[in-house]
């Protein structure tokens, strides 16, 4: 097919997207023609797919799926909601956080839903929630003494805890989350019209994700030096291996692309977090996921 597929990223290419770009390179070798645009946040990527200006987007558009008239479907889980409550040494467990202020990413966003679920499961109620987007910015706020508790992602947690200042902070014990943080989605009509491309793409993702689990350093090795990741400053590239071995060890990526397991976890998680109306058992997975390409890829 002459037409390029258009991919809407939800952030600018950086270490976390290295694996995705490796997969894209593999897909390209198999004849997938693509272009990508980075949006500043997930909502924009979702909007762009809603408007039909992009074909495949990054994010977890459950609310949009339920509320808008567009048939959006997820085809692949890119990463899980692996976030960690980090505090100053004032607190040592989530129980201590009852009534205490916390710094989160954005209202209605992933960390907000984590906080909601924490409240529900642990039986506490956080105090004031304030919002600063970007885990690294929240780390900075923590370091700058502007906050005592926040929820940050895996790589920032590791960076913080390994730094000299790490001793002053606690990572609070938390339950495991299987729900998606980032997933690939598209308009169902488009997916069906472009079965072949989607198949190549999902195959490439699955193979990359599985290879990565065997050896995280393939990401660094397979990163094309002329691609958007290869062009990053040396400081960032140097940390790539560390990031992916941490990520694999921490279970950030599902080598099987999520599939039904992820879908079920999402139903549960996002309805608990308030982004989906209804209870998990009334929700129909087929309204949110389109599993055919992933199933086909897993068979190979």
């Amino acid at each position, binding site marked *: 097919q002459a037409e390029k597929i258009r991919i809407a990223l939800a952030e600018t290419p950086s270490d976390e997207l290295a694996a995705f770009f490796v997969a894209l390179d593999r897909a390209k070798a198999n004849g997938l023609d693509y272009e990508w645009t980075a949006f500043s946040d997930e909502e924009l990527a979702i909007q762009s797919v809603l408007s039909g200006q992009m074909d495949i987007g990054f994010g977890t558009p459950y609310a949009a799926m339920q509320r808008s008239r567009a048939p959006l479907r997820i085809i692949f889980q890119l990463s899980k909601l692996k976030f960690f409550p980090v505090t100053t040494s004032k607190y040592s467990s989530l129980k201590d956080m009852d009534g205490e202020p916390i710094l989160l990413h*954005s209202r209605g966003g992933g960390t907000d839903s984590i906080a909601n679920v924490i409240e529900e499961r642990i039986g506490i109620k956080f105090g004031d929630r304030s919002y600063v987007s970007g885990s690294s910015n929240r780390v900075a706020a923590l370091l700058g003494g*502007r906050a005592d508790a926040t929820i940050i992602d895996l790589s920032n947690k590791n960076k913080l805890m390994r730094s000299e200042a790490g001793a002053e902070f606690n990572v609070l014990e938390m339950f495991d989350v299987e729900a998606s943080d980032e997933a690939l989605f598209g308009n169902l009509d488009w997916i069906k019209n472009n079965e072949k491309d989607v198949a190549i793409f999902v195959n490439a993702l699955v193979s990359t994700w599985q290879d990565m689990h065997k050896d995280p350093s393939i990401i660094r090795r397979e990163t094309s030096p002329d691609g958007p990741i290869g062009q990053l400053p040396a400081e960032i590239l140097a940390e790539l291996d560390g990031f992916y071995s941490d990520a694999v060890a921490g279970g950030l990526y599902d080598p099987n692309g999520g599939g039904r397991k992820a879908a079920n976890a999402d139903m549960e998680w996002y309805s608990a977090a308030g982004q989906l109306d209804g209870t998990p058992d009334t929700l129909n997975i087929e309204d949110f996921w389109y599993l055919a390409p992933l199933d086909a890829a897993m068979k190979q």
Partner: protein
Amino acid sequence: MIKRANLLKIVSAVVLCSAWEIAGRIPVSYAFPTFLDSMRSFFEMIGNGMMLEAYKETLQPLVIGVLISAFLGIGLGLWIGLNNFFDWLFSPIFIVMQAAPLAALIPLLVLAYGIGLTSKVMVVCIMAMPVIVLNTSGAVRNTPESFKEMGKSFLASRASILLRIIIPAASPVIFAGLRLGVSAGFIGAILAELKITPTGVGDIITYSRSIADYPSMYAAIFSIILLAVLFLNLIEKLETVLFKGNQRGYVSD
């Protein structure tokens, strides 16, 4: 009998809103609500007090920031316009400030000033001040020579030349700068709410966007634009009251 100017305003507003409604009905995009839906959310949010609540938050940094920028900005602008040394020393700073991609700087501001009122006021000031300063100083430099000469010959002190000649002569451009400054201040306030911590109207925008409640999102955008326009009309009134004789009508008349 409605004045023609007002009639035109109404007619063009009706045209624009219908265009919106039609675009929403096509729809241009699933993320683009109709005018009527947006208005419904708008009045709902007014009805349930959400709007009021939000504006209480949004207006605080905005008003403080705009007031600081207006007074400090006009003062600095006059100073820069009158004194070559300060022009040389400070103009570049304001040009730099104007060019500063604030959105990128916000994380740093948060680091320096936290996520409270201070950093939001800072954002508003950084946005609003440069235009006010640069417009004022430019206008001051362009004051017609013969007015200043006249003032001098009638022994106007430096202060009265400033107050009675330079400022009135420069007032149209100063007010244009003020208008721009206020609008930039609005941009700053929203940017701060979008990028620092979502509170007030910025929160309605981001939150309703994240739950794909697009009518509410557009209603919030609509309300902030409405407010900005009201603000500006206020400034315009102020200008007409203060400098009546500067209204010299249209060349075509």
